[in-house]
């Protein structure tokens, strides 16, 4: 998933200038610990799961005018880093208006990272750590085992499986997403996708 391209630690401003160059238009770049890291296109399955997650949030968040949901590729400023979570939510209270240009200058309230086969355990742990240090609830989704780890900034950690639902009583009261809805059963894929 990741390719480091430069050696010297880069500032957010320099990174933004680099990412805005025309030749980088079609790329998803992240700034992780001062290094430019490119997010490669993910596999179809992971991306499909991310779309199911977005679907659950978009409906709830839009109908309540609560904030914004972003899909794969949106850059958020998380401390000194720019992360591109697979799905994220940021409340209107923290971001009154979604900027039409540039990265979102704040950390999201909630970030989903869907694990790809090439993601290393430490990369994921590092990202989770940075998110948590900036008050973000992070949901790490493992498509292979159909599990979701929910990390909260107070170091609470919950493991959800197919039989569980994700609820976020403090952040989005009333929201509930059944994991069975985001992990489709293989045989029923065609039915779900059609």
């Amino acid at each position, binding site marked *: 998933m990741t390719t480091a391209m430069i050696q010297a*630690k880069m500032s957010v401003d320099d990174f933004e200038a680099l990412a805005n160059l025309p030749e980088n238009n079609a790329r998803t770049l992240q700034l992780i*610990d*001062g290094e430019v890291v490119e997010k490669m296109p993910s596999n179809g399955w992971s991306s499909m799961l991310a779309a199911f997650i977005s679907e659950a949030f978009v409906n709830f968040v839009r109908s309540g005018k609560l904030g914004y949901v972003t899909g794969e590729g949106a850059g958020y400023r998380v*401390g*000194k*880093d720019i992360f591109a979570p697979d799905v994220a939510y940021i409340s209107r209270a923290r971001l009154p208006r979604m900027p039409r240009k540039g990265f979102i200058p704040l*950390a999201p309230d909630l970030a989903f990272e869907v*694990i790809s*086969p*090439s*993601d*290393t*355990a*430490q*990369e*994921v*742990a*590092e990202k*989770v*750590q*940075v998110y948590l*240090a*900036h*008050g973000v609830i992070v949901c*790490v989704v*493992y498509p*292979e*085992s159909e*599990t979701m*780890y929910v*990390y909260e*900034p107070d*170091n609470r*950690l*919950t*493991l959800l499986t197919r039989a569980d639902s994700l609820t976020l009583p403090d952040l989005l009261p009333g929201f509930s997403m059944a994991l069975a809805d985001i992990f489709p059963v293989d045989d029923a894929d065609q039915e779900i996708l059609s």
Partner: protein
Amino acid sequence: MTLTLEKRLSADELARLPDLVDDMPRVYELSEGKLIEMAPASAMHGRFAAKLTMKLLIFVENNDLGEVTAAETGHTLHRDPINGDTVRAPDVGFIRRQRFPKGLPETGYVPGAPDLAIEVMSPYDTANDIERKVAEYLRFGTRIVWVFYPQTRSVMIHTPTRIVRFTQADTLDGGDLLPGFSMALTDIFPVEPDADDSASA
């Protein structure tokens, strides 16, 4: 790296695999009959695992609580003639005295899952692999799994009923399994963080 074989292997077949292939040392684990090759650990990883092994071993021996195994020791988590056996090699394992009052068997792998399994993450361990490994330990009877992430100086403690994330300021305890054991994480993680992102929200 994962080798894919058509035939699922048993723990006994795994034990008979040659240690050397093309003159290169090989260590394997077995996940439901599927061979998983383990590359030799890095210097940092080995040093870290050695330190953990020493701390645990001293406590366990002083209190006569059981046996501690070092990295690369096979533990037969599960035997399943149909789906294949599962043999894992934690970086450190602990087995309660009650399970083997006369000590571990002279030959073969440790029968059953370790009561405590410790894994230290290397830069190349994938998120999927450790997730699967932890799930196997817990499914087959391990009571506590500690996963150390040296890069972030954090530890994930998995038990069948809960998961807790510890960071550098915390002290790990042994719970009911190792009553009285405690290890400050500042003792185990390298002192100087390398430009860690510690900005507050």
